[in-house]
């Protein structure tokens, strides 16, 4: 169990553990925010496991999750709009935490892999994850709804 696997274990316990509890209880708004944060946490765990097991091909899992994770959250924001609109959850703190954690993990794993196309792939994965997370959590917390005062179509 090298350092990477220990970090993955800690991130799994501290980051993903509360998500499982938060998604099973409480109002719908908080559950969607928990699911969104869970996607980021597991994507980072995948990157750490790929580095811990010395298997660069595992980064494809993190890439697919970085691409599809936020899409899943947008599906909830879109199809559960009626349940979310009465009292939208506030997500700025959690999004900032996710972005910070993503930057830290991606920088650490990039430092370990060294320059090259593999590092660019990690940076792309990290960028996709952060962008998706920010937009999905803004969409969930209604950040765009009152900005444009769109009619509820």
């Amino acid at each position, binding site marked *: 169990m090298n350092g990477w696997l220990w970090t993955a274990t800690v991130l799994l316990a501290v980051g993903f553990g509360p998500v499982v509890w938060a998604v099973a209880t409480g109002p719908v708004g908080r559950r969607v925010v928990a699911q969104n944060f869970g996607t980021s946490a597991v994507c980072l765990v995948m990157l750490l496991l790929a580095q811990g097991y010395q298997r660069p091909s*595992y980064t*494809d899992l993190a890439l*697919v999750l970085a*691409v599809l994770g*936020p*899409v899943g959250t947008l599906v909830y924001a*879109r199809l559960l709009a009626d349940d979310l609109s009465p009292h939208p959850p506030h997500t700025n703190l959690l999004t900032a935490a996710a972005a910070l954690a993503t930057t830290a993990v991606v920088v650490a794993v990039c430092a370990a892999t060294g320059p090259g196309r593999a590092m660019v792939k990690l940076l792309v994965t990290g960028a996709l994850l952060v962008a998706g997370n920010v937009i999905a959590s803004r969409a969930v917390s209604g950040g*765009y709804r009152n*900005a444009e005062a769109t009619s509820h*179509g």
Partner: protein
Amino acid sequence: MSRRLRMWVLAVGGLGVAALLAAAALRLPGFGGDDHPYGERAVEASLARRTSNTIASVNFDQRAFDTLGEETILFAAVLGTVVLLRQTRDERQVRPAPERVAAPVRRYALVMLPVALLTGLYVIAHGQLSPGGGFQGGVVVATALHLLYIGADYRALERIRPVGLYEVGDAAGEAAYLILGVAGLVGGSAFLANTLLPYGTFNTLASGGTVPLLNAAVGMEVACAVVVLLARFLDQAVEIERSTGSGNDRGE
């Protein structure tokens, strides 16, 4: 057949299954040990045909006939859904109302659609090299197309996604898999045997003989099948409604 009797039959059946499972589990090699009789043979055969992803070799080479069964299960499931979710006589089709979506979400969907599509195609193409394959990549490709529904509305998605074309693609993917199998037969060896193409050099795109081609066929079939499946679900959820109802409720 009283309820009590049925419970007894269930209990006896369950007990039998439990006993068999326990007996089988006792003879399994220890968890995490280094004795893998099946694994060693699979890896050996996979390396013999220069397929670096052993799972792809098992899926599309050593047990390709089972994957034909899996693919046909998906094909039949989507066929059943199309039949069940068709529009009945007392229902009518309503044009979906345009949905206003925030600009950042729309831009994100526009940027992510090609990127997700490319990721899906990458996962299909490299099925025999790295984790992935036709099934996983096909689902990613199909989900990528539906970013248009999330970024805009169902009317925009319908404009870019002719369902008839994808139904043909679904059938063509299934047929391609079968034709590759028969090609093995015509080539003088067995159905779905991997003796047709050269095995190429290890860890490159052309390695593994027919494995990449079977992967591509399954990828096309799964992508088209999921698009057709979602099309039927979206039709029912957004467009089709009972014509006898109050009638002014337009689907959105």
